[in-house]
């Protein structure tokens, strides 16, 4: 019997469908999306409620949307977690990997399909969220500037999310255990965030953080013509915060980032702060993007290697 050889695109689409249908029916994912919308609603509505209570009018702010862009580290991590935490390990645990791997499709293509499905799922979720923020922002604060940058915000947040996704996928592929994957990922996330804050604020080694995923070192933006105070307006320079850096870079291409350190037991008056060093924002941003891409590539490769070598005993 003559048999038509399946085309790669056709097989890839089959895996994407398989995974997408799973993603959109996952209670965890639906819950996360609802939580994200609830938080966004709260962020939008809270100032309105507070101002109403104190009879203050709401002033129009054409930069509201663009200044609040960037979904934020925790939300990025949680979206990554709920989308891919069981996408490989869950298949091993439930045994559904057996019928899947015995189809005439390579394991490489299965992984590519899963990653593409995660990309589509997260892109859709973030697009919805940004549309909601834009509509809410316009309704409350009037017409908004720089809305053409919104697609870049979605892309930036996607890149940030993919760093965590590749970390979670790699752990899942190595451990083949969803609980272990989730716990390890949460520990890494907390360690990165707490570690980053401590290193960034109290030591002079903030530069180490440039090469780790997550929050990264906290710096202060120095925009020419504007005064910078070190008490407000700190900017995280890690892979979680690519969107904010992209927006700042586009709006202020010649801005610098200054890293500071709190000197314990230093000057008796005021907050004892010491400038460590400054870098151009462009450098900080592109290094962050490069680090994100490096992590994603290395970890997806590790995931692929573990999946390719996996033997299905049960």
């Amino acid at each position, binding site marked *: 019997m003559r048999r038509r050889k399946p085309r790669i695109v056709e097989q890839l689409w089959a895996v994407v469908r398989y995974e997408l249908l799973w993603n959109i029916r996952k209670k965890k994912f639906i819950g996360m999306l609802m939580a994200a919308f609830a938080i966004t609603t709260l962020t939008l509505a809270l100032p309105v409620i507070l101002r109403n209570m104190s009879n203050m009018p709401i002033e129009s702010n054409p930069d509201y949307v663009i200044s609040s862009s960037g979904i934020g580290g925790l939300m990025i991590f949680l979206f990554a977690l709920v989308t891919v935490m069981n996408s490989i390990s869950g298949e091993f645990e439930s045994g559904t990997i057996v019928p899947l791997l015995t189809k*005439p499709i390579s394991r490489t293509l299965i992984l590519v399909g899963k990653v593409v499905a995660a990309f589509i799922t997260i892109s859709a979720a973030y697009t919805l969220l940004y549309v909601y923020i834009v509509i809410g922002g316009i309704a409350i604060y009037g017409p908004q500037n720089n809305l053409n940058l919104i697609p870049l915000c979605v892309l930036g947040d996607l890149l940030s999310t993919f760093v965590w996704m590749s970390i979670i996928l790699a752990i899942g592929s190595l451990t083949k255990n969803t609980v272990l994957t989730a716990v390890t990922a949460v520990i890494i996330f907390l360690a990165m965030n707490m570690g980053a804050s401590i290193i960034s604020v109290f030591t002079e080694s903030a530069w180490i953080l440039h090469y780790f995923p997550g929050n990264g070192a906290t710096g202060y933006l120095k925009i020419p013509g504007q005064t910078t105070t070190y008490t407000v307006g700190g900017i995280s320079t890690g892979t979680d915060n690519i969107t904010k850096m992209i927006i700042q870079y586009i709006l202020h291409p010649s801005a610098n980032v200054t890293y500071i350190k709190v000197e314990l037991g230093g000057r008796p008056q005021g907050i004892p702060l010491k400038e460590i060093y400054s870098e151009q924002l462009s450098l900080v941003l592109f290094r962050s993007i490069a680090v994100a891409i490096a992590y994603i590539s290395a970890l997806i490769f590790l995931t692929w290697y573990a999946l390719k070598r996996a033997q299905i005993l049960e």
Partner: protein
Amino acid sequence: MELAVETTDLTKKYGTLVAVNKLNLKVKSGTIHGFLGPNGAGKTTTIKILVGLLKPDGGRAVVLGEEVQGDNPKARLKIGYMPELPKFPRHLKGWELLDIYGQMYGVPIQERRVRIRRLMEMVGLKGRENDLIGEYSKGMQQRLGIAQALLSEPELVILDEPSLGLDPVGMVEIREIIREVARGGVTVFLSSHLLSEVEQICTHISVIHRGTRLAEGPLREVISKISGSAVLEVEIAEPPDNAIEVIKSLPFISSVLVEGNKLVIETNADEDVRAQISRAITEAGGTIIYMNMKMKSLEEAFMRLIMKAR
């Protein structure tokens, strides 16, 4: 005859345990081949190597002319496989799963629709296509397992314990499906604990124990080699003295036991030899009052083989 599956010195170890030990299997195309062995004999491990889930540590396995060494999608294109107690994603509907799997085999969309409808009806899941697999019972998942194994119209169907978890009606239906599939020229390779089931549907068998082959060949041939093929009970009016000698001299007789007027004759022929025995007795001057033939069962042969190997 062409071989659908051939393994040569196939070996698989789990640490120090040798699950499959220099196994040599030959499964002829167009047969229903039963794969038997006690628990832990290495049946599932062997099957997993054939479908690319495990990588052998030694020897080789060729399936439909393709060498299988781990992940080789091309080798799986012509194989339909149902794992033991198959598990499918609970979040998919029955038809969605088959549609996605069909797409992986490169079955065009219109053809997929036709096949899914036909297969769902065949395995008794008609009307449940739009339900989530998470709502299926174990038996229904088993039926879906059969459907997905046949979806690509494979040349070789590998079924690992296809009747496990099915009720008696389901078991009969599955047997009928297997026969139907084989009538279309498809090779069926199935492992089963149910020896009566194997005896009813298989044309050929392989018996393995501790990862090594103990016996292989056409079903009746294997049985008769191990325990003789049949036992005939013959009652004769007045047994002439020379009748027993004449019967004993027939080439297909293993033993003759005399209990008064009754003879218990054990044969090792593959075919029905009642006519030859009856003629021999009559020619020796005897009159047959009663004759009954009992074929040796697979269970008997299997037990004898395994006990001997232990």
